[in-house]
């Protein structure tokens, strides 16, 4: 039994212009204590996936079909009251923008204690003790003073630490981090990523890291899912994705990132065209219109995910043409020296 199992999830936004299929048949499993990365560009459906799991989608978005099982318990179809038992308690989320996700009219302590009072049977005083303890855990100095301060009195990095403290106050099983460092500077980003990894090991929770930054993925993830236009392109261990990308989109993505360690100036190879219009999805592979190796079948039919390695799946017709994939999971390869 996996900790979290998402099966064939479809989430759409029903706008006046038509149905926007933000997540289009996504399946994944998350095991206990693992860090799963979901990487993709804007509009790839990575954040909507997170919101679907927690069911915090706003109108006109809703889950159309699919199943989300947490510890073998179906989440899709649960009432708001039932979901509230899970949100912030069993599954927590940190948002991208620490500036807007804290309430400016309440003190830090107030907001931290809210989650603790709601989900545990601690009294007000114990909740405050817990809040101070959490702030200490995330590396905030003088926590007794901080809990009486407001969000505007803290820097961006500090606010993100407070958000993490809030998310972890009830010791969740899963932490969803939705672009937690995108709004932060690199040196602060390094602090926050280190903190998340450190707490993940200490508390043994699983993390879903949603980001557009391949560097962040390489730094902290065990497994990676590459998404494009609401579908999975490729998934596997971080090493498999980075060293043996198989899907044309992943390959294109890798080629378009500048290499820090290159002495010579190599030209970047961008992916041609513009991201797909989610209102007008083609029948075939969503990446086909931008793919320079697209074949006839790519435009007509979406490829299924096939095994391209022991821990590596890819949904690309090119893999079948090149004969590098199979329907059977291959044996574990020997480690390269």
């Amino acid at each position, binding site marked *: 039994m996996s900790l979290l199992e998402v099966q064939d999830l479809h989430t759409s936004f029903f706008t006046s212009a038509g149905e926007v299929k933000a997540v289009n048949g996504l399946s994944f499993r998350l095991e206990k204590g693992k860090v799963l990365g979901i990487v993709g*560009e*804007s509009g790839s459906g990575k954040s909507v996936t997170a919101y679907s799991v927690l069911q915090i989608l706003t109108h006109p978005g809703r889950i159309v079909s699919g199943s989300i099982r947490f510890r073998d318990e179906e989440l899709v179809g649960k009432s708001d009251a039932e979901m509230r038992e899970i949100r912030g308690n069993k599954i927590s989320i940190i948002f991208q923008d620490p500036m807007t996700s804290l309430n400016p009219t309440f003190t830090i302590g107030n907001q931290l204690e809210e989650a603790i009072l709601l989900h545990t049977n601690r009294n007000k005083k114990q909740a405050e003790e817990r809040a101070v303890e959490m702030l200490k855990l995330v590396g905030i100095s003088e926590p007794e003073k901080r809990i009486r301060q407001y969000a505007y009195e803290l*820097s961006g*990095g*500090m606010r993100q630490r407070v958000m993490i403290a809030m998310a972890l106050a009830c010791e969740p099983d899963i932490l969803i981090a939705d672009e937690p460092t995108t709004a932060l*500077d*690199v*040196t*602060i*980003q*390094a*602090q926050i*990523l*280190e903190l998340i990894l450190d707490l993940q090991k200490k508390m043994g929770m699983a993390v879903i890291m949603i980001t*557009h*930054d*391949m*560097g*962040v*993925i*390489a*730094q902290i993830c065990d497994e990676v899912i590459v998404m494009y236009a609401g579908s999975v392109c490729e998934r596997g261990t*971080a*090493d498999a994705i*980075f*060293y043996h990308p198989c899907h044309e989109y992943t390959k*294109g*993505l*890798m*080629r*378009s*990132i*500048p*290499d*820090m*360690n290159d*002495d010579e*100036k190599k*030209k*970047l*190879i*961008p*992916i*041609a065209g*513009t*991201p797909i219009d989610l209102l007008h999805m083609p029948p075939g592979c969503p990446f086909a219109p931008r793919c320079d190796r697209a074949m006839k079948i790519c435009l007509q039919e979406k490829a299924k995910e096939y095994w391209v390695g022991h821990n590596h799946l890819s949904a690309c017709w090119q893999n079948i043409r090149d004969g590098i994939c199979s329907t059977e999971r291959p044996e574990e390869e020997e480690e390269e020296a």
Partner: protein
Amino acid sequence: MATESTAKAFTPDPEFLLQVRNLKEYFPITTGFMKTTMLKAVDDVSFDIRKGETLGLVGESGCGKTTIGRTILQLYKPTAGEIWFKGKKIDSKESLREFRRQAQMVFQDPYSSLNPRMTVADIVAEPIDVHKMYTNKKDREARIHELMNLVGLNTEHATRYAHEFSGGQRQRIGIARALASQPEFIVCDEPVSALDVSIQAQVINMLEDLQARLGLTYLFIAHDISVVKHISNRIAVMYLGHMMELASANELTKHPVHPYTVSLMSAVPIPDPKVSRRQQRIVLKGDVPSPLKVPEGCPFRPRCERATEACAKTCPAMREVAPGHFAACHNL
């Protein structure tokens, strides 16, 4: 001519297109009742840019990198310091007018930097309208089409409005506008940070092509070090309004010497799991201090592991530690 206007020893070097000397930009901030404090956004910065070169400017938010770009173009009036362009000091109204034609800017946000009420043609033509760089309407239209072709935009879209374009295309419009007055020098202020990775590469490649084709000189401001490393010949690192280190792109990323640059480079996430696992990260303690309360002496001192007493007393000046490699640190 230049030497006549300044009594001081500074003589412009013809090798450099742009020379900035002791540039300061202070903003008065109201900090209390009848009380203002000077926010030193840029404090005593000097550097040169060669013709045809790209100088990258990196630093964290609030370090003054954007202010430098804007002050050079005199969108802000410099508090102190000199700007020399092609051997001429920019100090009079006439010199500024000519300088503004030859120096242009590409802005970070392709959403707010284009007027939503103007058509693409009018946006692109604005600089040539201002500088009256065409003879008749036909001439103007031909130039608009030429510019749109140059940045890979469909000329049929000239009558559309900015909101009808995607982020990457809008940035192309912004670049076309910057090229309209045939400038030699362009300040690119975070031109790709609002774009997706795949689109980012398209715009970076285009900037490189245009540079080669038109002989442009760039001041490339960005916080993404891997992007800056890719496009720049030399890189300057800023911290709290001060320049900390300046060296060639390879030298600075491979062998940084200033403690701040060292930790900055180690914090850059490398998109390679094996390298990333081996990477020795120096995680800096604490946050960047408020630019209103810049520490005495070296601005980096409170977060620096190698800080000594000397660092608290005086602010280190930039000096050459290796040929072409400058750093401002007492401990080198």
